[in-house]
């Protein structure tokens, strides 16, 4: 019976069972409610955007494996997750070719050229989003109003598909017709014109916090439903896929200055809840900044990283050249991760200074 040779690897001989695919799948599950909400609010086109970016990522990954004569790395599920994460901040009517370029860029330039999963410096989905934002500013900031499925404004399945597929390569005018500002964009534009926050968001724009939290506002297809994203984030915390350090410190990094400035001048600076429920702060804090590969491994480092992401987000939102700063903030902080890790290693057992 002991004729089979016994294995003699190093201890430990048991394993907890966690694996990369399990982690990636859990994150995908945590994103799905918010993604579904995106489809509900913005119609079928949002679904097609998600499918196209995910397919683009998966195909690029497989092609790259083949070119390099490597075994397929699709099994780790990270390409699919990147695709979904990339779709979330996109406008719900993003043309198909932008989705394809974004997906290809995320995997090729954002990950594989660094050596594949685990070696990339920047969050692939975010670096692709930043790339798309600076390359296609018009298409990337044309936000259609919510057109919930089953409502009379809703496009049919075929119409939704047509919006994405037949989107011409170069007609910003047409998109302009559809375009209107996100709450963050509206606030920046109006305040820069000398209006107060109340004038900017109230009146004809009709912003209310309740629909913002629920996702019924103009914006990207998966970022708007703050409540469902928060639920997904809490699910990840419960599943111990992420720890509290990065999300909480990132939220604090944005909300603390928001509270201070709002308190000093509420006419110029919107309240902290506005910052919390608009734009991509929650998806950024729970899903983007917590990307394991591109965030610090030490608890103290994670807090520094999160605070940095949050603070930069507030700075860009309030004084920067773009209305939304989550992607830029995280990408900038990604670059600082090796440094942060280097200087935030925990004090090990028996080396604490408190000893007599």
């Amino acid at each position, binding site marked *: 019976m002991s004729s089979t040779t016994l294995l003699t690897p190093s201890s430990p001989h048991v394993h907890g069972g966690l694996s990369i695919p399990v982690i990636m799948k859990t994150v995908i599950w945590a994103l799905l409610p918010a993604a579904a909400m995106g489809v509900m609010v913005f119609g079928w086109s949002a679904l097609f955007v998600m499918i196209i970016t995910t397919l683009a990522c998966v195909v690029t990954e497989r092609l790259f494996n083949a070119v390099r*004569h*490597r*075994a397929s790395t699709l099994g780790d599920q990270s390409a699919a997750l990147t695709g979904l994460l990339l779709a979330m901040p996109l406008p719900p009517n993003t043309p198909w070719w932008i989705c394809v370029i974004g997906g290809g860029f995320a995997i090729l330039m954002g990950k594989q050229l660094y050596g594949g999963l685990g070696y990339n410096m920047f969050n692939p989905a975010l670096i692709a989003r930043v790339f798309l934002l600076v390359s296609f500013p018009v298409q990337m900031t044309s936000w259609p109003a919510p057109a919930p499925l089953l409502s009379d404004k809703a496009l049919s399945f075929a119409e939704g598909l047509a919006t994405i597929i037949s989107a011409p390569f170069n007609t910003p005018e047409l998109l302009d017709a559809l375009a209107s500002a996100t709450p963050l964009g509206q606030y920046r534009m109006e305040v820069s014109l000398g209006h107060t926050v109340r004038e900017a968001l109230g009146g004809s724009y009709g912003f209310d916090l309740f629909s913002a939290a629920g996702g019924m506002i103009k914006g990207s297809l998966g970022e708007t439903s703050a409540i469902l994203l928060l639920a997904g984030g809490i699910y990840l915390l419960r599943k111990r896929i992420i720890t509290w350090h990065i999300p909480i410190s990132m939220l604090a990094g944005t909300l603390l200055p928001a509270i201070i400035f709002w308190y000093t001048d509420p006419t110029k600076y919107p309240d902290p809840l506005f910052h919390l429920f608009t734009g991509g702060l929650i998806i950024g804090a729970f899903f983007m900044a917590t990307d394991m590969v591109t965030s610090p491994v030490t608890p103290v480092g994670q807090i520094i990283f999160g605070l940095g992401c949050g603070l930069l987000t507030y700075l860009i939102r309030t004084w920067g050249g773009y209305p939304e700063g989550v992607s830029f903030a995280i990408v900038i902080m990604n670059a600082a991760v090796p440094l942060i890790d280097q200087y935030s290693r925990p004090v090990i057992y028996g080396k604490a200074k408190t000893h007599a």
Partner: protein
Amino acid sequence: MIEAVLSMGGMALLAGLGLGYAAIKFHVEGNPVVESLEAALPATNCGNCGFPGCHAYAEALASGEKVAISLCSPGGSEAMQSIAAILGVDPVAMETDQGPRVAMIHEEKCIGCTACIKACPVDAIVGANKQSHTVIADMCTDCEACVEPCPVDCIEMVPVPDSIYNWKWDKPAGPQVTIH
């Protein structure tokens, strides 16, 4: 125009003075490359490399002449790797890398002539005239200097035997990515 020429010229002068000062202030005696190379060599001065001692080999390596970096047999591939790192060249294959060895004297054949004792650069062989000699294995540097002088060919370089005391964990292979 004049101001530009003057200011540029002034700056050049300042930079030149600074460089000149630094050259004197931070002047290094001897060749630091030779020193670090010598530190990487085992210092047995056995001459296996064909140079008269470790210092000479280090100087030859540092001189930029075409000298193979793999000539030090006592240092083995470890020394070769260090030399490659210091000189900034690619590591090469060792000509003969059989792993660590020690000299072993076949004591029944030894006639006690002390020739090997005289040859050993690190006094790792003990014995007296007309008495069988023996090698202090811990001291032996695998330089083979004792093999040649023995008139009865009783010295053999034997691989250090594996035991639980010198056994090492091999390095894990790492992620396997290529298709075979």
